[in-house]
């Protein structure tokens, strides 16, 4: 198949069977507002507590992709991949199931989903996929996020 390559990948395969929990993380008004402003959000439900309450939220609502900010703080293990030095984000899928609001306490559960090689115009790469499920303090799933990273030489 085009783009596929035969490569013996060396990494810690035992991680596939493990779940990595993290949190709770308190969602603060300050972080929600700072995030919203930095990406140009102007809807007052993301910025103003009164407007958010008038719209039916308990507090300022977090913009949809807020949980992606938390992923780098999940302290995930190094998978020990013996390939490449440079890493960049290749993709991100965010499935949203409930709105996060300031004051929520979120927990995360992460799993290593896949590690696979591919070749592109820039040469060989190895993709690592992690899946993260975020829940609020009521146990409700608020977001399911899949992130892929490409490692290259």
């Amino acid at each position, binding site marked *: 198949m085009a783009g596929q390559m035969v490569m013996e990948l060396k990494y810690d395969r035992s991680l596939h069977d493990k779940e990595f929990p993290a949190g709770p993380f308190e969602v603060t008004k300050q972080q929600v507002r700072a995030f919203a402003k*930095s*990406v140009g959000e102007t*809807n007052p439900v993301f910025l103003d507590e009164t407007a958010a309450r008038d719209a039916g939220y308990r507090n300022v609502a977090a913009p949809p992709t807020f949980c992606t900010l938390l992923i780098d703080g999940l302290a995930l293990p190094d998978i020990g991949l013996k390939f490449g030095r440079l890493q960049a*984000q*290749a*993709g991100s*899928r*965010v499935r*949203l199931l409930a709105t996060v609001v300031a004051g929520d306490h979120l927990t995360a559960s992460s799993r290593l989903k896949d590690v696979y090689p591919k070749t592109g115009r820039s040469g060989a790469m190895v993709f690592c996929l992690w899946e993260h499920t975020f829940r609020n303090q009521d146990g409700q799933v608020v977001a399911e996020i899949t992130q892929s990273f490409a490692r290259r030489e």
Partner: protein
Amino acid sequence: MTLLSFDEVELGDEIGPVETEATDEAVLAFCRAWGGMHRIPNRFTDPKIARENGQAEPIVPGVMALAMMSRVLTEWAGVGSIKDLDAVFRQPVPHNQSITIAGTIIDTRREDGENLVECDVLMTGTQGERFVTAKAVLALPSQAHA
């Protein structure tokens, strides 16, 4: 605010295009909001650190580009409308350059009691660079609930 309703949307309708930009200041503000794990300066804010990480210059973080895309979708369809946003980061997104975000409706359907709109979304540069491509599914209110 008047909400867009499902009955107003048709296949082929366009979202945007919206011209925007991620300035150095905005990326710095984003990294500050990102939290303590992203010390500043970092590869997204500092040219030297970017070069050490194989980049010609600091770029816009992927999660920031994703958030900019979600902003445009939310401005079009309303808060809480995004159900699924699936993005591929195809090229580094530069700072301080005009970026266009646009979408096209490719499907509308009623599913499990929801009015769903599916769209292709693109983040492009002034030279036609396709920085980020995405598919999104949005839930819209019906006319009766608008």
